């Protein structure tokens, strides 16, 4: 009898002890969470709430140049995207795809080549690295203006001056090749970014692995293809992902260099045109924005997967 009493006593002590431990763990958890709470709330207020509003607007026919109150129209905006009237949207979407893919691809290639050149000891290495980074530090609007007025300009541009020098006719680049002009400037600005990421990957390589490959009889190019490139994979993936995220929302360069000519209007530019830029169709523009978000997620995923497979198959 007395034994039973002792047992039940021990039981209650054990449960209260377990409760105490749980309480302490909860407190520890809050200690960790509390400091990031303000940042989390701020982020939700400035990104997620506007996103929800955009989602709501995309389901209305809201335009601010009419006095009628906005009407809820369901998914009408979305279904209209395939109609004849929305041809410009589809054009802009296709421009966005081409522009992002080409700009990311070329800046990745140029950046990798620059990184390989920088990944060796030479006099003035630090200085040249800094020089190579500068395009990335220039404001997008300034970069656009600089290229428009000083490089690509029909009358005063350096490129046309060089063409004239070798007996070629001047070309009105911004009009004749609007998308190529924009991509050229984007590659100029984004190659340094890719270079920095790839350089980090190159410098993180174990030197003795490269030496082992040399002793094993691999050529310089063979070492790059079989040893270095597979090791660079996560860095190339990171560059692609970050590059795509930024380059899909390019606006400044297009505004400054080609300024709304057909052929180089990407989605962000078209969305601005159709809403705050004079179009006033906020309902429809919201729909475009939602499509951009969905497309960005899909493109980033496909891009990553393609790149992974490309490097995985190489054996």
């Amino acid at each position, binding site marked *: 009898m007395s034994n039973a009493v002792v047992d039940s006593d021990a039981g209650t002590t054990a449960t209260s002890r377990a409760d105490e431990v749980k309480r302490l763990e909860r407190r520890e958890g809050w200690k960790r969470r509390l400091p990031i709470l303000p940042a989390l709330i701020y982020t939700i207020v400035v990104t997620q709430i506007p996103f929800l509003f955009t989602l709501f607007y995309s389901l209305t026919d809201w335009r601010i140049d009419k006095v009628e109150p906005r009407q809820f129209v369901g998914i009408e905006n979305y279904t209209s995207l395939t109609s004849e009237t929305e041809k410009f949207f589809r054009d802009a979407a296709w421009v966005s795809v081409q522009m992002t893919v080409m700009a990311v691809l070329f800046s990745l290639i140029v950046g990798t080549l620059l990184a390989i050149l920088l990944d060796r000891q030479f006099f003035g290495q630090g200085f040249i690295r800094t020089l190579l980074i500068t395009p990335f530090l220039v404001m997008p609007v300034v970069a656009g203006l600089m290229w428009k007025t000083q490089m690509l300009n029909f009358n005063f541009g350096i490129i046309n001056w060089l063409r004239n020098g070798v007996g070629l006719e001047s070309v009105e680049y911004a009009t004749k090749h609007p998308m190529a002009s924009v991509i050229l400037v984007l590659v100029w600005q984004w190659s340094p970014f890719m270079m920095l990421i790839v350089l980090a990957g190159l410098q993180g390589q174990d030197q003795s692995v490269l*030496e082992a490959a040399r*002793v094993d009889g*691999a050529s310089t190019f063979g070492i790059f293809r*079989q040893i270095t490139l597979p*090791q660079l994979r996560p860095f190339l993936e990171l560059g692609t992902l970050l590059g795509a995220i930024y380059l899909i929302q390019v606006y400044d360069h297009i505004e400054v260099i080609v300024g709304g000519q057909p052929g180089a209007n990407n989605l962000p530019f078209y969305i601005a045109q159709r809403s705050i830029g004079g179009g006033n169709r906020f309902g429809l523009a919201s729909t475009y924005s939602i499509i951009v978000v969905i497309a960005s997620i899909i493109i980033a995923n496909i891009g990553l997967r393609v790149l992974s497979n490309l490097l995985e198959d190489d*054996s």
Partner: protein
Amino acid sequence: MAEVRYEKASRIYGFGAVGEVRAVNQLDLDIADGELLVLVGPSGSGKSTALRMLAGLETVNEGSIFINDVDVTLKPPQERDIAMVFQNYALYPSMTVAENMGFALKQAGVSKSDRRQQVEEAARILDLEPYLDRKPKNLSGGQRQRVAMGRAIVRSPQVFLMDEPLSNLDAKLRVQTRTELVDLQARLGTTMVYVTHDQVEAMTMGHRVAVLDHGVLQQVDSPRTLYSQPANLFVAGFIGSPAMNLIEVDRSGDTLSIGTTAVPLPDDVSAQIRSSDVNTFVVGVRPEHLGLTDDGIPASVTVVEELGSEAFVHTEVAHQGGTLTVVVRVEGETNIRRGDSISIGVAGPVHVFEAQSGIRLGASA
């Protein structure tokens, strides 16, 4: 199968204003076909640099290196037909074990089926068969070491180069792998140059051992000769564990005394001292060549290291106005404790060196 020859080979860093540093200085070394030669020395002695010069990974600034009488001094690594095992193994992280081992064969254009066959044979020798499809990051340290070995033997190279291949293994595995490596080298009969900083590894593995210090070759000989007849003070202090007792002694006439006790010297050494104009010498006696006697050098015990079959007794001895530490090996169990007063006698060969130059007196190897 190959002989290797260093002819006055030097590796020089930092020309010009900085002043030059000779990492390896005028190295002359002949390595016979099928020999396992160990390069040993403290860090900064140039042993790894000497090996990397042979591999073609370091420039040879002066002199030449020959493999099988072919001058390879200016040839890139891939044209030397050598295989190297690195300290950190340097496995290709993105490749499987089989791909790692077959890499050199692939570069040489060997067909896929031949490659597979040779890799499997090497894997059988090294017990790596279950791991052929794994990536290096999924292997233990010992397995990685074996993959690095496998990568070397699969090519049947002229020379194996080993750069401290066991130093990343734990003590027990190191001793085991050491034996396996010696056995493997003997079976394959391939010339091997092995770099280590561990003199025990050097003594147990090498057919001959080359001792380097500050880029200069000090002595190259069989382990036994290095131990019994060190060519100079550096080799005497470096080879042997625990180290040889080295006692600086000012001479009186042709006798050298520790404390007040004269050290028994061979006749030729006494003769050399008599005719020398050097005043300070270093007397070297290994701990096992000292013993307990009744009327020897008085000493007080500071530490006793008991190892079961033997004990090393660290003592303090009064000598030339100061005290110095002398280590004595005592066989079997001992009753000696810290604070005891004992008497030490010399019971074996004594080595004598000139203090300044470190040169050995008497018969040399």
